[in-house]
């Protein structure tokens, strides 16, 4: 018998909670070291120019200045993806966006560094600028980069799973829709900061607000040409990340170099304006959906084209491009699917991964188009979705391996909770209700750089004090990664989570975890921690069993004791168990690691999208629209999330509500808009709103009530059955708002953000719509043809276009069921255990649904 869960599923204070409410959590800019110097950059005022000369002489002689660095000091490029090593710590010959750094001044104070930077003289030769993807497609020369597919196309991809044109032609109707999703940014409250110094052993040490210390470690080794073991990267707790701190950044490399040159600690903290230019936020994406539907609502095929505005650098852009097409298939069964995506370079801040990475844009288009389909064929949008959910434990058309699929329960919860059936198309003019669904990864199945190493690893040290110390490279960015690690280890070892000491995100001390991105930490680091903890428990059980003469399998680890299940009085304290085991075995340490299961997608491009598991969400949004002004107010949101199992329901609810909040910001107001300065001011492309004053984000006053439902159906690959929650719940909100606006006033805003101006404009337009009306002709690369599983494929590309075959049936029955992946064991009886108290919400408890 497995004992009931004692930690997992119980609402409790996060293990880092106390430090955060006392001000003791030290963020990167809170660090200070004796003799510390400060670094400031001189940045380009031009969006695209050749650097003809840089004269630093006056700056070098200015008061307080210790060093001035330029691009000449950094001959090696770097970047997050091996295929996009296109960034320079300081630009050498060319600036590619306004804000690109050209020189760095290291001085005794920040203000001396800033003043001296103004004395640097740079001579530029201005180049033609490219402001958007259409200009990029039309401008072969000058190229912003000398790599990429061609001209200013960074990456274009074309994948087809079954003959889509044939299936479209055979469909009763084809829905042809265009959508545009504006870029927006993370706006983490903490501005990026880094402090580099030479450690006591003379090695380079960088403290930085990064979500990915391992990747920063690799980038430093490359850009500074140092052996990695001579570099230590410590990820400070991030004051919010949301994907904005997942790239290695130029300031991290420059302060490292400066510390090595001066022999003194060097700090750089970005201003808010600089953070806006660092960006790596949501890509603006133009989309074209053609979807074949039969009269009963069955989707027969989907053809999706996306065009991404990548900005000035590669960043994660190749992955982002694939992500705009990877997850359309994992929510609803698509018998045939074609995806073509293109990312262009433009002279703007580089886009990258923001919460949902590349998937919110096509999710918006897909879910709004489904709403249009439902209205057109006279079917309830909830029923339209329910009739063709992707089946659990099946392969999708693009060979994504699904695990559990809790989407049906999610839809049912929000439909029932919101009173959907009595409201949709029945509310008075000006009030409306909208529904949308989504899915997201629980960790990318493949690493950023190709290797067969574990994605996460955990070491546990137990000593005679009874203390358990956990070492893991995972990075706390506010999402609760520390709490996940402590919680699962506490569950296995029967101790209190607060009794576990955590050492995380330090490349000298902790085993590699790839970082806090792609919603991977709970599943991957969680599984690694469970493995290490189970190994420790075995060692302890053997020692205690031998001492007490009890079979190991009869021992229970709970309440900081190890005791006989049949006779709980027979046992020892956890500390005594460790002492017994240390006496018997010597020093105690265990390890655990996690590598995702191999992907079924064997085609080129199939590396983006596979995940050990997928989470699901459904949302209903109720809005009020003033028909005379277009003013839009979101009154209430009902959201259900398939969490697999909630490890700590307080944190799960926080992630869901935080995701809804961030999504409402995107849906209603946030946009990374750029503008051109007048020609007399160089025609520069600059940020329209590089401050928190002008970049509007929701305050307390804009937040509607949120009703949250947790759907729990333990996922075999998840730690104690858990799935991700950090990103998925953001995804359905934007389309649900758009669908609610249509329900309220009968207009379609096929763009994000959905502003009052657009609503009003749509109400005046004859087609009752605002949004793009065309997609440019793009020279697509040769299509990679991969037959879907139900058409006899093996996950590999075929030489020729898929042979003509019978049109496959729509609906769930065509999904190919496959055995569940072997994963970490999930206690089967645990479905009956866990939360029996409200989710720590005194006034609006989240409801927990168990299958």
């Amino acid at each position, binding site marked *: 018998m497995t004992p009931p869960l004692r930690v997992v599923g119980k609402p409790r*204070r*996060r293990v*880092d*909670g*106390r*430090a*955060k*409410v*006392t*001000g*003791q*959590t*030290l*963020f990167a*800019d*809170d660090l*200070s070291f004796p003799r510390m110097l400060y670094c400031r950059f001189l940045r380009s005022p031009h969006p695209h120019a050749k650097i003809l000369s840089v004269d630093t002489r006056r700056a070098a002689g200015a008061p307080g200045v210790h060093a001035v660095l330029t691009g000449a000091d950094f001959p090696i490029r770097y970047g997050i993806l091996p295929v996009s090593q296109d960034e320079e710590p300081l630009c050498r010959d060319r600036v590619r966006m306004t804000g690109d750094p050209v020189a760095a001044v290291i001085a005794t104070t920040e203000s001396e560094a800033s003043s001296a930077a103004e004395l640097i003289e740079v001579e530029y030769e201005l180049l033609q600028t490219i402001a958007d993807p259409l200009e990029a497609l039309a401008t072969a020369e000058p190229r912003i980069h000398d790599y990429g597919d061609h001209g200013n196309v960074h990456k274009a991809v074309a994948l087809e799973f079954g003959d889509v044109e044939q299936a479209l032609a055979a469909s009763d109707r084809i829905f042809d829709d265009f959508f545009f999703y504006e870029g927006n940014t*993370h*706006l*983490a*409250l*903490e*501005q990026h900061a880094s402090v580099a110094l030479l450690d006591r052993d003379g090695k380079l040490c960088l403290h930085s607000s990064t979500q990915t210390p391992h990747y920063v470690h690799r980038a430093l080794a490359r850009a500074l040409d140092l052996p990695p073991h001579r570099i230590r990267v410590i990820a400070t*707790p*991030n*004051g*919010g*990340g*949301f994907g904005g701190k997942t790239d290695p950044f130029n300031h991290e490399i420059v302060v490292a170099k400066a510390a090595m040159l001066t022999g003194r600690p060097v700090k750089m903290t970005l*201003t*808010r304006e600089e953070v806006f230019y660092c960006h790596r936020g949501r890509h603006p994406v133009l989309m074209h959906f053609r979807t074949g539907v039969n009269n009963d609502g069955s989707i027969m095929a989907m053809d999706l084209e996306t065009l991404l505005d990548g900005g000035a650098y590669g960043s994660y852009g190749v992955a982002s491009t694939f992500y705009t097409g990877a997850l359309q298939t994992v929510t609803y069964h698509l018998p045939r699917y074609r995806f073509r995506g293109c990312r262009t370079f433009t002279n703007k801040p580089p886009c990258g991964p923001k919460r949902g990475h590349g998937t919110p844009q096509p999710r918006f288009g897909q879910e709004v188009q489904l709403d249009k389909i439902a209205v057109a064929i006279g079917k309830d949008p909830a029923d339209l979705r329910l009739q063709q959910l992707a089946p659990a434990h099946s392969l999708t058309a693009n060979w994504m391996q699904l695990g559990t699929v809790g989407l049906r329960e999610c839809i049912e919860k929000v439909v029932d909770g919101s009173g959907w059936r009595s409201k949709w198309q029945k509310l008075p003019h000006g009030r409306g209700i909208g529904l949308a669904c989504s899915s997201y990864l629980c960790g990318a199945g493949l690493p950023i750089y190709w290797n067969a190493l574990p994605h996460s690893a955990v070491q546990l040290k137990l000593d005679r004090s009874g203390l358990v110390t956990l070492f893991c490279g995972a990075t706390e*960015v*506010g*999402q*609760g990664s520390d709490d996940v690690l402590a919680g699962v280890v506490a569950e296995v070892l029967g101790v209190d989570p607060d009794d576990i000491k955590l050492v995380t995100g330090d490349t000298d001390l902790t085993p590699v975890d790839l970082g806090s991105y792609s919603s991977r930490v709970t599943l991957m680091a969680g599984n690694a921690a469970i493995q290490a903890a189970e190994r420790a428990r075995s060692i302890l059980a053997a020692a205690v069993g031998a001492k007490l003469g009890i079979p190991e399998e009869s021992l229970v680890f709970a309440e900081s004791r190890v005791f006989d299940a049949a006779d709980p009085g027979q046992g020892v304290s956890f500390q005594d168990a460790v002492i017994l085991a240390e006496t018997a075995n010597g020093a105690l340490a265990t390890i655990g690691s996690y590598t995702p299961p191999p992907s079924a997608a064997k085609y080129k491009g199939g590396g983006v999208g596979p995940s050990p598991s997928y989470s699901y969400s459904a949302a209903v949004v109720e809005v009020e629209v003033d028909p005379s002004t277009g003013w839009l107010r979101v009154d209430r949101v009902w959201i259900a999330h398939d969490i697999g199992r909630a490890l700590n329901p*307080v*944190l799960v*609810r*926080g992630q869901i*509500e*935080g*995701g*809804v*909040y*961030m999504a409402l910001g995107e849906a209603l107001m946030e946009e990374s808009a750029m503008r051109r300065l007048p020609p007399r001011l160089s025609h520069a492309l600059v940020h329209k709103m590089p*401050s*928190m*004053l002008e970049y509007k*984000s929701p*305050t*307390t*006053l804009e*937040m509607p*009530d*949120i009703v949250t439902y947790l759907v729990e159906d333990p996922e075999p690959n998840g730690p104690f059955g858990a799935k991700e929650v950090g990103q998925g719940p953001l995804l359905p909100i934007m389309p649900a708002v758009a669908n609610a606006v249509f329900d309220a006033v009968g207009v379609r805003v096929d763009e994000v953000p959905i502003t009052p101006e657009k609503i009003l404009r749509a109400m005046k337009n004859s087609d009752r719509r605002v949004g793009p009306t065309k997609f440019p002709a793009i020279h697509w690369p040769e299509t990679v043809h991969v037959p879907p599983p139900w058409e006899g494929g093996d996950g590999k590309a075929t030489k020729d276009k898929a042979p003509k075959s019978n049109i496959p049936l729509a609906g769930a029955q065509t999904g190919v069921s496959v055995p569940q992946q072997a994963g970490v064991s999930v206690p089967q009886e645990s479905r009956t255990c866990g939360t029996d108290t409200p989710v*720590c*919400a*005194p*006034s*609006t408890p989240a409801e927990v649904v168990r299958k």
Partner: protein
Amino acid sequence: MRTVPLALRVNGEAVEVSIASHKTLLEVLREDLRLTGTKHGCELGECGACAVLLDGKPVLSCLVLALECDGAEVVTVEGLAHEARLDPLQEAFADYGATQCGYCTPGFLVTAKALLDEKPHATRGEISAALSGNLCRCTGYIQIFEAVEQAAAKIADAREDEVER
């Protein structure tokens, strides 16, 4: 650089520092007094991360010239606890999910403290209005509202206990 003397009471203790006259209260707290619990987020008085109590009222310390505070009483997040015992607001923020990354938390805590000092029975609407100058990108605010309500209830219970005694 010429400096000028500044005398304050910070978290109940008298402090005297010699500062550059252009410094903001935020800079003096973080750089001269090493009280890094108070944060910066926008340099514009828009995000609320730098909120502290100045003579009991919440102010944005990035917009306050330190010299204007001579003789004033300043409370930062480091001064909220009662010796080793956390303030009910701190307890509630930690327990009810009102802190995620924790960066905005000090500003929210002192702002909520000022609210409850003035209105111990603040309604949800009053809490939302009082905190509307503080941005949080993690929580969606609802767990923050709930934590303030929980703290208010706990403070009220403690008062009743005292009255009964």
